[in-house]
């Protein structure tokens, strides 16, 4: 891989896994919160789609 030579180093590699973890946890909590707040009625119709 030739392009490796263009960017020899990035300082602070530890940030990559940390950012990823924070990103996911935020995402997961947001989706969880949203789904929890949505009234069940709003989704009932969709759940019945395969049985139509």
């Amino acid at each position, binding site marked *: *891989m030739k392009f490796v030579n263009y960017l020899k*180093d*990035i300082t602070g*590699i530890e940030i990559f896994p940390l950012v990823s973890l924070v990103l996911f946890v935020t*995402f997961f909590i947001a989706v969880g919160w949203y789904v929890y707040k949505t009234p069940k009625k709003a989704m009932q119709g*969709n*759940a019945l*789609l395969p049985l139509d």
Partner: protein
Amino acid sequence: MQVEKFYYDNKIVKFFAYATILWGVVGMLAGLLAALQLIYPSLNFDFAPTTFGRVRPVHTNAVIFAFVGNGIFTGLYYSLQRLCKTRMYSDKLSWIHFWGWQTIIVAAAITLFAGFTTGKEYAELEWPIDIAITLVWLVLGYNMFATIIKRRERHLYVAVWFFIGTWVTVALLHVVNSFEMPVSFLKSYSWYAGVQDALVQWWYGHNAVAFFLTTPYLGLMYYFVPKAANRPVYSYRWSIIHFWALIFIYIWAGPHHLLYTALPEWAQSLGTVFSIMLILPSWGGMLNGLMTLRGAWDKVREEPVLKFFVVAITCYGMSTFEGPMLSLKNVNAISHFTDWTVAHVHVGALGWNGFLTFGMLYWLLPRIFNTTLYSKKLAGTHFWIGTLGIILYAVPMYWAGFQHAIMMQGFTAEGNLQSQFMDMSKAIWPLHAFRALGGALFLVGVFLMVYNFVKTLRGATLVANEAAEAAPLAKEYVPTTKNHWHSWIERRPMKMLVLSLIVVAIGGIFELIPTFLIKSNVPTIAAVKPYTPLELQGRDIYIREGCYNCHSQMVRPFRDEVARYGEYSKAGEFVYDHPFQWGSKRTGPDLAREGGKYPDSWHFNHFIKPSVITEGSVMPAYPWLFDNDIDTASTPAKINAMRTIGVPYEKGYDRIANSDLMAQAEGIRDGLAKEKLKTAANKEIIAIIAYLQRLGKDIKTVNKPATASN
């Protein structure tokens, strides 16, 4: 509003269903042969195409891409039309997809048996087939999205999200992992080398499990379980979390296949953390599937379809609990390279994929023929034999995994290794025998299903075009109830596609980019030099014969492995390995430090008949290596291809490479002749000996093994 009349295409569903059954039988037969070869090596037949190293890739590829692949398409073509209330967009594209996929399967089987392989597990197919897969996948995608766009149902049901997520992610994985440098029509080298190749490969390999064996089947679960139980999915809320969280996290977990290897530490930890988190969405989905049957458990007792579904979903739950456990480093130290991994994947493959497919087929095939199943009782027998088969397969393999690890890690009071590799190999022999029996039972169940279907469908006529009617979508959307936010994306398939791609790309980017961009991730070792032309040819023979299916080239930093195999492997040792050959299972010992361990004559005799040199060895004999000439005509092209992807052969070296090759080969031949072993210098056996004698030697010659570049 005027109701429109239209017809569902059942003919394509029938063809995919038949293909699923056919390739299921073929793939499982190949698996049974491979299992028997590990207990009776004579079943390798001393014939190149039927040796374990080639049969095993045929088995894995056939089961994953032919059996499960066609299973996905059967369910997708059936459910998508009904969930979108429309016929597939184009019959022609459906048939191009069908025949294209079957042609790829046949081409794959032929090339793998013939020894054309990239040497990367589950991605063994050579570049022309890779391109064909991409094209056929695009045909499926176009047909699928065009169908979704002309739908008569505004909301996309959760099954369709899983199909969309699957399509886009498989496309991404396949393209990224298949970057390769063609040498000839059926030979290429992976664009990536060593650690990077390993990371990309297991990013792919893990997500092939995720996005080929799991997400599309979850789509099928969300459609067929409610259908068969005749009640809606337990929680639509959970399915939203299940979908987004699953596709988001799955893509990160690949590095858990490389724990304790030369992969950078942070990448290993990242893989572990995300693997543990995977329990949440996986179990949410599993419970959602099982709870759909709440209040219908009395039906489960009588309905074989539901029985298959219950065990399938339970197996999904078991393997998705086990997976995160296996990604803990201390557990992985036991499971990796042993039969535990094999047990784990087969709980998933036989239980989850196998049983969900069987349940779906039992439900669907009689319906599209407008008939009833010939014998429910026989289907029930299939269920019990299959379940017994799974247990008989999995339990001995778990046992074998632990026995392997315990025997290999044991030390005597004096501090010596307790067992030789062969002691362990012999100890797990009976367990491998039971495994073959379990696999055979599972296959017997499949034959019962085939018989049942033959009886069911004899005399019945296919409802090739099933009439249905629905109102077209109104131009303006007027919501009937107050809409929730997610319903916005459920009405927009293309945005769903883009968002899914973004969600999976995040994980891919964070996982792959740092390893590619940062040189300090792979400390260079000055003593590591490119392979000589003869060694390179030998390496290609090693790849052709599928040696990586049984031998690893990765000494982990454990006391027992260092004592048994030598200095643990460093990332910098693999910088010229296109592709990497770390392996994933040790049916035979590790070869990372094989160079210089035995004389050339040992290898020469060992390849004639391994069991004569090592009593009890299950390795096949390789008599053809003594007859075949080294393909020296390919040497210049190979050197040039390697140089293009970054291996520092000097310019013009391709022209003189063959004279170096012959000089080295003659040296080995003369050495063998001194021990009264006669062979010509241009035979393949010479090349493979040269390669094996090179393995791991580079850093033996220096005192200071690794120096980081920065």
